[in-house]
């Protein structure tokens, strides 16, 4: 019986299926995927294997056609669109490949962005600007840069700001969609190390998606998306 998720699971996906509107073949068909609390999961898959779609489903941006996504025992599929938006603002941190920041906001304002959309998250954060500075300290971003517009920063600096934003208010899960692909190879490892230390400090789980298997080595677990996703194979 799969219907009741285990207590230790933060996220549990069952029989998830999704087809983009206008397409005939599903992009996602995942019988099972779990992520534990505080677990660091590396998900590897070539481009076009449905990584971004899976993240969108977990983030509640799209509603699956079938199956369930339990997040901390809440079934996302049963929530209204507004409730999913609230859930995302409260419980998730998101880092994109690049262009994470609003270019016309300064660095600090970018970091505290999720607190604007969720009062719960703002309350949990406490002193928001102190928390932002703490995270930026941890992410090794010089204080002189923090009042600058986001688009004045280098790509590497921007990704670290994005990581700080994803972590503000200690969300339970951080979704990272190829966050290092825009970085030089020597910067990648440093970024991942910073991310790991802060995810650990916040007690957040991390789902890190990349096509590059070399990055996988320090994660708790490695998942191959093509191995668990079998679009078109389902009966």
């Amino acid at each position, binding site marked *: 019986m799969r219907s009741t998720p285990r207590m230790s699971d933060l996220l549990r996906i069952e029989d998830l299926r999704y087809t983009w*509107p206008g397409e005939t073949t599903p992009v996602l068909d995942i019988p099972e995927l779990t992520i534990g609390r505080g677990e660091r999961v590396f998900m590897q898959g070539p481009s076009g294997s449905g990584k971004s779609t899976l993240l969108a489903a977990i983030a509640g941006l799209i509603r699956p056609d079938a199956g369930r996504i339990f997040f901390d025992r809440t079934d996302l599929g049963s929530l209204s669109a*507004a409730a999913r938006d609230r859930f995302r603002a409260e419980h998730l941190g998101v880092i994109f490949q690049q262009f994470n920041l609003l270019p*016309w906001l300064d660095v600090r304002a970018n970091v505290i*962005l999720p607190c*604007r959309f969720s009062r719960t998250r703002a309350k949990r954060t406490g002193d928001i600007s102190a928390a932002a500075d703490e995270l930026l300290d941890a992410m090794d971003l010089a204080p002189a840069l923090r009042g600058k517009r986001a688009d004045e920063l280098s790509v590497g600096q921007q990704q670290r700001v994005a990581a700080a934003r994803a972590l503000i208010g200690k969300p339970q899960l951080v979704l990272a969609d190829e966050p290092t692909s825009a970085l030089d190879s020597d910067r990648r490892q440093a970024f991942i190390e910073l991310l790991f230390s802060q995810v650990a400090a916040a007690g957040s789980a991390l789902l890190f998606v990349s096509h590059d298997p070399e990055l996988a080595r320090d994660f708790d677990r490695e998942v191959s998306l093509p191995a668990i996703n079998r679009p078109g194979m389902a009966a």
Partner: protein
Amino acid sequence: MNLLGLAFRSLINRRFAVVLTVMTIALSIALLVLVEQMRSEVRDGFYRSVSGTDLIVGARTAPIQLLLYSVFGIGDATNNISWQTYRELEGTSDVAWAIPMALGDMHRGYRVMGTGDALFEHFRYGNRQALEFADGRAFDDLFEVVVGHQVARQLDYGIGEQIVLSHGTGRTALQQHEEHPFTVSGILAPTGTPVDQTLYISLPAHRAIHIGWERGTRMPGAEMDADQARARAEELHPESVTAILLGLQTRAAVFGLQRRINDYRAEALTAIMPGITLQELWRITGLAEQILRVVAGLVVLAGLLGMLTVLLTTLNERRREMAILRANGARPWQIAGLLVFEAGLIAACGIIAGVALALLVQAIAAPWLLTTFGLHIGVSWPAAGLWLVLAGILIAGLIIGLVPALMAYRRTLADGMQVKM
């Protein structure tokens, strides 16, 4: 900083396009406001000038023409009223006062009017105000002249100034009444009516300077010198006057008297009620006003469509921005709301700037209108009706903002987490 703060920052980031859009809308609003304001201000200005006069009498002519040449100095009279008729009208029992107007001379572009003391005593303008002297007094000696406020100001005349009148109403009259110089005896206080642009002399003076001019030009030897004229001042009077302003004992008598004047046997006359004739004039100019209004309305529409164009073209480059906001917890309606708010803010700024611009243009144009037409145009606050129109435009701006907002709303739902650029 809340959601509106974000909207402001985003707008500031795109300030050039935003400022240009605001300017486009501001110009269109300014045009609309100016058309409306000028229309009502010009009407008020005309009405001020005749508000105290019950009837204007002239030779048989079109009512609007009579009104324009007698009071406003626009165009010329083709015929005059005989002196006898003037005396008769003045003595009619219904008539409280009669102000004769003998036109035909100019002084450096300003009208010279031969008239009587009744002008200073009985003429009323605006809100029943009488003429007042800013300096000096009415004409007493035959060759004294009272000048309107603008005349004195523009030509820098003071009491005691010696001036020479010109014969004829052309702007560049060549023939001068130089044998009869006049002395300024009084300067009128400003009225905001054509009175400010006029010089006043007595009827005997008007007659005196025209003796020997019966054929329209000077006949050497036929003139009367100043002392002779002064000696005969009591008996001098013009053979005709151009028009007469009448005030009645009771307003109720106005229709009867008007009919009697229009039916007058001895001479073909026209009597008009200035308020009603102004209404006729506005009916004629109404079509042009309507066209101006339609044009102004279309320009406003063009301004709003310009805003829509800007919002739609920025929508694509802002797709990433919206995906970031979505990923961080913004709801689709909040993103749509940002765009509606933006449209509303641009429209509101455009309206405010447009009204300000219109008021500025009015303030700049006012002196020109005053010197050119003798019309006093106040920089007045737009009327309630105009504010309603402006509110409607703001609402139209918000509705136009819904177009990109709905597009953004649908896109944010469809884009999911992907930021495809």
